[in-house]
């Protein structure tokens, strides 16, 4: 083998095994799912490919409520994560001093306790006879029979809680990179602190806002643990429907159609969001 062909083959030798794994267990399943979504039949006799495009129409019109809810809950949670996470990341990056790495450690530490278990802990915190509910009832934020658990608020609070570190960390990384001299220059040139914040800090933090929003919104859209543990069927999101269709009802074509629609929606969403924020290189910004 000539040196030249060896040179050309070498990278593929490195990439090959991993790429093969992804082709077999990521790309092929997605394509297969597209074909399953066009099948008709029933769990007893099995399903056949009949190019039933109406599956999509049926699935979307039947579950448009859950779809809308997923987008709404994920959107509100992402916004809340940004509101809670930005000052936290800002403080850590600029004012934390020698506490910086300690705060970062605190932000990632909850990850090392089971996600499901922490959500179960929220059940306990928000339960009807818990302190939070009785406090809210006393100060009048909740009526005498008002509840927190099994409500929209609980599901959104749970999602916000679970994905906050995914927002805070990319924000921190972006803010940390900002040269403080740029802000000094802005104020020296007679920009007020507000203007400096708006015209220097925020634009430079945009890659972090972009990455953080995606890392929060995408998993939040498909999440079903929070809705299952903190909500009722009235709060179920599209993830709950996909899961029960696949594992309990065994209606694979509809489940596949829903899952495929969710994926498409998110891809289109990422694309539009990237255009909106003017990000040139999608992959670079998100990583």
């Amino acid at each position: 083998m000539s040196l030249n062909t060896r040179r050309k083959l070498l990278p593929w030798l490195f990439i090959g095994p991993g790429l093969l794994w992804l082709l077999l267990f990521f790309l092929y399943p997605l394509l297969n799912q597209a074909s399953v979504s066009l099948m008709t039949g029933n769990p007893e006799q099995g399903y056949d490919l009949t190019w039933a495009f109406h599956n999509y129409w049926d699935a979307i019109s039947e579950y448009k409520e859950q779809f809308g809810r997923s987008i709404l809950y994920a959107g509100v949670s992402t916004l809340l994560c940004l509101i809670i996470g930005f000052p936290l990341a800002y403080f850590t990056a600029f004012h934390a001093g020698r506490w910086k790495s300690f705060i970062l450690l605190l932000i990632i530490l909850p990850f090392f306790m089971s996600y499901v278990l922490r959500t179960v802990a929220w059940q306990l915190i928000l339960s009807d006879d818990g302190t939070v509910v009785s406090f809210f009832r006393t100060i009048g934020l909740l009526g005498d029979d008002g509840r927190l658990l099994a409500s929209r608020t609980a599901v959104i609070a749970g999602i916000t809680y679970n994905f906050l570190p995914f927002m805070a960390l990319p924000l921190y990384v972006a803010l940390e990179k900002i040269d403080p001299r740029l802000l000094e220059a802005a104020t020296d040139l007679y920009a007020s602190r507000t203007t400096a914040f708006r015209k220097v800090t925020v634009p430079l933090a945009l890659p972090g806002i972009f990455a953080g929003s995606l890392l929060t919104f995408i998993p939040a859209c498909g999440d079903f643990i929070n809705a299952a543990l903190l909500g009722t069927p009235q709060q179920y999101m599209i993830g709950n429907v996909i899961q029960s269709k696949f594992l309990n009802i065994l209606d694979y074509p509809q489940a596949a159609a829903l899952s495929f629609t969710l994926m498409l929606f998110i891809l289109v969403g990422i694309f539009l969001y990237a255009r909106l924020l003017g990000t040139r290189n999608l992959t670079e910004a998100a990583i």
Partner: protein
Amino acid sequence: MSAVTEVTPPAPAEETAPPSGGSARTRDRLRHGGLALWSVLALLYLFIPVFIVVLFSFNDNQGRFNFTWQGFTFRHWADPFADPDLAKALTNSVEIALISTAIATALGTFMAMALVRYRFRGRSTVDFFVFMPLSSPEVVLGAALLAMFLTLNINTGFVTVVIAHVMFTVSYVVVTVKARLEGMDRHIEEAAMDLGATEWTTFRKVTLPMIAPGVAAAAMLAAAISFDDYVITSFNAGQTQTFPLFIFGATRQGVPAEVNVLATMLLLGVLLLMAGNVLIQKSLARRDTMRAD
């Protein structure tokens, strides 16, 4: 959330002149204090459920119901593996995490090296393709994989969970190792080759030691994600139980306090590992400065 008004960043009103004098300094201090308070509240929000889990591992509850505080006991800490199903689920999770991490780290490290080191046709396509699983919701990944196993009549269980975990952790490994490689000085490797080292020797003696911290971080990340995964696992586990599946399944009758004990122990283990790592780094740094003197 009454603190919102005082902390939202654009605090002071529009000014035409640069801040000067005492009032500006007071405002700075207020802004600073507000940010600090906000951060403390945000961290509390992150930690309240963790405290609750730890606290209720000491709860003297009757039966499995562990929702109200009954009194303090070490009972659950005496024998956290009492429930054989729980013990089995935990063992499965550890085994799955170890096996899938080993595979994903090996596959991902080589991919990252090729993506950073070589300019070849199709590189950016591969780059984007590796990024795809990260930008798909887990429920889609899990459902698609299950649909494939069903179509091919493959029984789901331990092996299919490992396959699934490798699939979605390999991208995290690539991203982490790539970040390390991109910050690396190529000249050191070139120097080794100039001095007559073969490509393989250079890789073994120069490249690998240099990227080792990145690879270790990637492996830890992969293991943590695999160990804690519920969504993808729930689709592909069949009859196999894992730690997160066990907890979710137990929510209906009440999660046994032993689960809280095990989760607390794991958290303590991670903390000890981190502390140990910091101490090692510090002593290494001290040794280096002493040498330099």
